[in-house]
């Protein structure tokens, strides 16, 4: 190796830091500082008019424990995560298997499944809003064909969360499909051929060969899906605004409402701390799971 390629340690440090400086400043300003400041500010009251913020310790968290809306939003969000992650991943896998094989109209299908990914959530939320409109919307028109009466899908606490979950699955499945498609295309065909020679059925091949080999992708997609489930609020703003009676209120939406509609920044900070804790848990999961993944290989 020439001397030119082995710059001294000191040059490395200087050049490295100089190159990193702009990114580092912005990352600290908009990721690390706000994450830490959230903890700090959650220990203060919200300044109002002439009354400045004062230190109140854990009072925000005590208020949170007694806040039924917080608990509703948290439970809703857990249901929302549970109800969107598994169907989206299962559909994504199925879609990828389909468009990876030899089906009639494969080009159209790839296009169709991926379309929701490139559409703005706000735009499609408008369209879904129409689908769910009582009596006039598409869903009720189909019900009408079977002689069923009109139903207020988004206005009823029993169905509103399901309706939003359906939109999320529709939006996410095609995106996750891409990752499975990548994994399927990198899979060595010999394994499959060997299994076919042994006389394994399609289902057996899927269960014993394909599915296990897709496991690393599934873990990656799963972590993404969890983060998504706690971060997606766009369609709530358009379709329900958390209603009726908070039946479709989720954590980030509640933070948004608290911080920017009620202007209660102290309480919003405490709520953000909860969300950060959940994300830290996801990170921990990802870390341990990725650790295990390397053992497998």
């Amino acid at each position, binding site marked *: 190796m020439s001397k*030119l*390629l082995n710059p001294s340690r000191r040059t*490395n440090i200087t*050049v*490295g830091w100089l*190159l990193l400086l*702009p*990114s*580092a400043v*912005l*990352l600290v300003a*908009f*990721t690390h*500082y*706000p*994450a830490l400041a*959230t903890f700090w500010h959650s220990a203060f009251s919200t300044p109002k008019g002439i009354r400045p913020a004062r230190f109140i310790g854990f009072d925000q968290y005590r208020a949170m424990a007694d806040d039924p809306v917080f608990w509703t939003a948290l439970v809703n969000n857990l249901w929302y995560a549970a109800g969107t992650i598994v169907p989206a991943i299962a559909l994504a896998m199925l*879609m990828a298997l*389909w468009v990876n094989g030899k*089906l009639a*109209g494969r080009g*159209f*299908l*790839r296009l*169709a*499944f*991926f*379309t*929701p*990914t*490139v*559409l*703005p*959530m*706000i*735009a*499609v939320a*408008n*369209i879904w809003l*129409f689908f769910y409109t009582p009596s*006039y919307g*598409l869903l009720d028109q189909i019900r009408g064909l079977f002689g069923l009466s009109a139903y207020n899908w988004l206005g009823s606490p029993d169905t509103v969360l399901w309706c939003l979950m359906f939109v999320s699955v529709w939006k996410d499945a095609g*995106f996750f499909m*891409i990752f499975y498609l*990548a994994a399927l295309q990198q899979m060595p065909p010999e394994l499959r051929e060997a299994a076919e020679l042994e006389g394994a059925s399609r289902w057996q091949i899927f269960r014993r060969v394909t599915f296990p080999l897709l496991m690393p992708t599934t873990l990656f997609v799963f972590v993404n899906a969890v*983060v998504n489930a706690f*971060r997606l*609020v*766009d369609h709530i*703003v*358009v379709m329900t605004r958390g209603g009726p009676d908070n039946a479709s209120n989720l954590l*980030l939406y509640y933070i*948004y409402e608290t911080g920017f509609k009620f202007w209660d*920044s102290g309480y*919003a*900070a405490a709520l*953000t701390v909860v969300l*950060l804790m959940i*994300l830290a848990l*996801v990170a921990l999961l990802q870390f341990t799971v990725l650790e295990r993944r390397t053992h497998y290989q």
Partner: protein
Amino acid sequence: MQHSRTDYWLNSAGAWLLGVLWVLPLLYAMWSAFHPSEYSANFTLSAPWTLDNFRAAWAAAPFPQYFLNTFLLVTSILIGQLVLCTLGAYAFARFPFPGSNVVFGLVLVQLLVMPDIVIVENYRSLHWLGMSDSIAAMALPYMASAFGIFLLRQTFKSLPRELEEAARIEGCGPLGVLWRVYVPLAKPTYVAYALVSVSYHWNNFLWPLIVSNSVNTRPLTVGLAVFSGTDQGIDWAIINAATLFAAAPLLIAFLLFQRQFVQSFLRAGIR
């Protein structure tokens, strides 16, 4: 082979059913936008075609301004990201210093703690900087992107060092090597990253919603939400026409560059 034939047709039918369900919302928006509003929920094949809804939507809201704002937002974020991520990735790939792994870990924190999670604090900071209601405020938190740094670092690391050696012997400094060797060779990664970034920020909503509160800064997504949120007798045909405005540029780009789009997502997805 009778068995596998039915198998094939069943799978095809299932795939097509799901495919149609997946494009249905878009097909509906098109139907409704191109027909008079009395046909919005009435699917008569003989319904007359019209462009009036597009005209009405265009006249009812400042869409040219929204388009301009989105365009400025997306391009300024992209330019910022390309420059900053290139420099950062180069540092991690070729100038490792003691503790640079820890610093890299700190960068990756952004993959989870994205600016739209810590909205309250970020709003506070930008307000303190006197930057609220500006496109710069919408763009700034996203310019340093952990994903971009990660992606480019992987690419830079995989490039042969002999090329760098040759450039150094020719008298290139660190920036010269970056500009003449690394950047040109990483072009496919840049294309992939640019597509992901543009589609993400074209569609982004919550952070721009919070930062913008005037027509001069609102991007398309926020403008659309304001437009359809005015509850004065919802005219679905006009809302759907506006919806197509907001979705059209990306949708057309997607239809034209479908293969590249999907491949770039494939590439960008592999971490």
